[in-house]
């Protein structure tokens, strides 16, 4: 089951529970998010008795623990750690684990389990944790022998953070937590069957450089893989873009890997991407995809996806290649390694791109840019959600800001209007689209960066899914800012109902909303409400200046829709702009309606 190094016969004798603490400390873990319960009490006892090597953060719901660990991991590049009990503790963690799997976030989640002799007996708070989490983790373990525990714990970290990162569950029965065994940190963690490939094939990278040299309309399309690969990958990407002069766009997950303030940045692509990014995708003759996976939110209609392009795809996960879109040149490897080779080869050959063609390409791109696809009708009476994000961005510049989001319209507006120049500053639930992600994620980010300005850009519907974590933020004095774009609707659901279901707003109205200001006060936090554009700046400044958790109830236009938008069943070059909203209903095919 485990790697074969170390046998659990050398080292110091201790209980399984103590081994958990030792192993976490040996892995350099400083914070662990969790919630106690019967089957995990020995580990909590060991936590109580340890000498401040680990800080435990008590969440209010296990889903919050995993999201907090995700925020922690995404903003630091470290592994996020979670400790929950058996049964409901484990099942509550499942949403977070699935979220981490979809977005490739390294998480180690330790779950308590009923004693081994009761497994399969329908014992109190028993569930088949490894069975339930098998499809939503990168790997999981049930430890039935104390001698296996040291290796399993360290291997779990190795698997979580190496290759394509992901969540790993270690299920530890209560008797194993009490059992005594020998603990030593294994010298090396090697798994025979698991060896992610980091270096890309040299000949293929050379071929890629050749294709890039001769491209007429090239485009970098990058994703979360660059962020996961580490800050070095972002640095190398910037270098490669500078060397080649090619335009660059990115997925939702990849924002910040390349600076949004750079003129070569086209903005995000995909369903709510910019006009210029999506048109460039459609018209390019060479697509250089690095650390992205041709997700359906990106490609739109597949048979019309970038029809004139040849495609290079760099990914650490071979199963991401040729899954949705057939590519011409696959390169399996870690983004930073492959980018390093690309930069070196380009430099070594003193290559130049096809400058004349590239100038024409940029001319075309500038025409698309001139459409100003993110434009919206401003208002003096109501706060437009886009305006709120723009002001938030302007007023938090230079303040070391980290942004998390929930899921929906506000998330897309945040992606469009809040600009990132650095990686690891943007934490959002992309793959799974988990409402309720942002608030607990902000808790994790703030814990990792105590002096930073951490803001959860939220919707009034999403934020209520994990609102209980305000209590966590207050307990640990984490001054997170919950910036709610309150449009009194599940906005993205309402938008689709407006466009696809004849304006029949089934259950998407946020009824009986709480008074968010009073709610903040009830949590001993600070509440601020603003519903006038003229007062917004002052209110945001007040929010920033408060050194406590804040819930900011930003009352916005309830009818605003998120544009640009590629309607269901359409291609990149058929995207709709804000002005076209009235005729949008005719633009969606019957088949498209099914596939929202």
């Amino acid at each position, binding site marked *: *089951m485990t790697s074969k190094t170390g046998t659990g016969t050398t080292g110091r004798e201790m209980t399984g529970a103590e081994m958990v603490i030792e192993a976490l400390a040996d892995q350099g873990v400083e914070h662990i998010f969790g919630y106690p319960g019967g089957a995990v009490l020995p580990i909590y006892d060991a936590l109580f008795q340890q000498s401040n090597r680990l800080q435990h953060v008590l969440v209010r719901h296990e889903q919050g623990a995993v999201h907090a660990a995700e925020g922690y991991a995404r903003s630091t590049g470290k592994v996020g750690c979670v400790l929950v009990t058996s049964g409901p503790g484990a099942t509550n963690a499942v949403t977070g684990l699935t979220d981490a799997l979809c977005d490739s976030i390294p998480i180690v989640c330790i779950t308590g389990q009923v004693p081994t002799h009761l497994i399969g007996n329908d014992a109190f708070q028993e569930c088949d944790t*490894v*069975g339930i989490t*098998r*499809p939503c983790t*990168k*790997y999981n373990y*049930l430890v039935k022998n104390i001698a296996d525990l040291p290796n399993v714990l360290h291997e779990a970290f190795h*698997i979580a953070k190496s290759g394509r990162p992901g969540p790993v569950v270690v299920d530890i029965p209560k008797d194993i937590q009490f059992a005594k065994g020998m603990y030593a940190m294994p010298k090396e963690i090697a*798994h*025979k*069957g*698991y060896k992610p490939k980091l270096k890309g094939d040299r000949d293929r990278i050379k071929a890629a450089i050749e294709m890039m040299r001769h491209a007429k309309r090239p485009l970098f399309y990058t994703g979360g893989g660059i962020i996961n690969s580490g800050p070095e990958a972002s640095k190398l990407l910037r270098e490669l873009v500078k060397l080649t002069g090619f335009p660059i766009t990115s997925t939702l997950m990849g924002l910040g890997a390349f600076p949004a303030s750079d003129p070569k940045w086209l903005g995000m692509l995909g*369903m709510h991407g910019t006009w210029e990014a999506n048109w460039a995708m459609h018209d390019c003759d060479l697509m250089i995809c690095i650390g992205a996976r041709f997700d*359906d*939110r990106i*490609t*739109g*209609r*597949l*048979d*019309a996806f970038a029809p004139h392009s040849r495609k290079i795809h760099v990914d650490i*996960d*071979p*199963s991401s*290649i*040729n*899954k*949705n879109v*057939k590519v011409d040149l696959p390169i399996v490897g870690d983004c930073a390694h492959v980018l390093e080779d690309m930069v070196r080869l380009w430099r070594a050959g003193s290559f130049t791109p096809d400058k004349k063609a590239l100038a024409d390409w940029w001319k075309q791109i500038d025409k698309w840019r001139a459409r100003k696809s993110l434009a919206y009708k401003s208002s003096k009476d109501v706060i437009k959600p886009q305006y709120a994000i723009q002001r938030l961005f302007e007023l938090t510049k230079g303040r070391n800001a980290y942004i998390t989001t929930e899921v929906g319209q506000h998330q897309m507006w945040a992606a469009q209007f809040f600009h990132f120049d650095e990686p690891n500053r943007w934490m959002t639930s992309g793959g799974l689209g988990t409402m309720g992600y942002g608030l607990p994620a902000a808790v994790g980010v703030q814990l990792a960066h105590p002096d930073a300005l951490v803001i959860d850009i939220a919707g009034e519907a999403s934020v209520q899914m994990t609102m209980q974590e305000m209590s966590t933020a207050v307990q640990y004095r984490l001054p997170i800012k919950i910036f709610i774009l309150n449009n009194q609707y599940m906005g993205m659901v309402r938008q689709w109902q407006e466009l696809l279901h004849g304006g029949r707003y089934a259950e998407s109205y946020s009824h009986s909303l709480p008074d968010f200001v009073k709610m903040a006060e009830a949590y001993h936090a600070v509440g601020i409400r603003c519903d006038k554009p003229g007062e917004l700046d002052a209110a945001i400044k007040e929010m920033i200046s408060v050194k406590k958790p804040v819930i900011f109830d930003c009352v916005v236009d309830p009818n605003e829709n998120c544009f640009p938008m*590629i309607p*269901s*069943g*359409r*291609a990149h070059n058929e995207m709709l702009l804000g002005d076209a909203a009235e005729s949008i209903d*005719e*633009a969606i*095919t019957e*088949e*498209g309606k*099914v*596939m*929202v």
Partner: protein
Amino acid sequence: MANGTSTSHYPAAPAAQGIESHTLCVLVDNEPGVLARVIGLFSGRGYNIDSLTVSETEHEKHLSRITIVTRGTPMVIEQIKNQLERLVPIHRVIDMTVSGPAIQRELAMVKVRGKGDNRVEALRLADAFRARVIDAGTESFVFEITGASDKIESFIALMLPIGLVEVSRTGIVAIQRGPEGM
């Protein structure tokens, strides 16, 4: 495309490609739950399993060999192999259908009931198919037959009118021809 034949935001079914049958040999750590991981991958991602066999083949290394016969378009088959290789306890995946000449065999036990001429006929056919009698009574036989799946199919079809009672089959196992190992 508004009156269109295809498309939505999700990838359309790859109708242009033909469906192929492939036999995959998968070398895995023989640990608890490993078969569940493989089967869960197939059911979770909507792949087909036509045949599945599994047994530990290298006891000292605790390695098991799983043989899976699956169907899909070339792109789906490629995806299945990549997804399998991604699973942590999986060491190797070999596609026996493309990796060179391979032998595929199956074993079946076939119970036939009958009297008089039917018994004689059953034995005669079994002899022709090189099936062995592994249990015999006054009213029944159990035959053991090994071979390619279509041979077993024909044998079973012939036994049906004679008095076929029950069939138990192992599913396909496969190995490459020649001196090289997996």
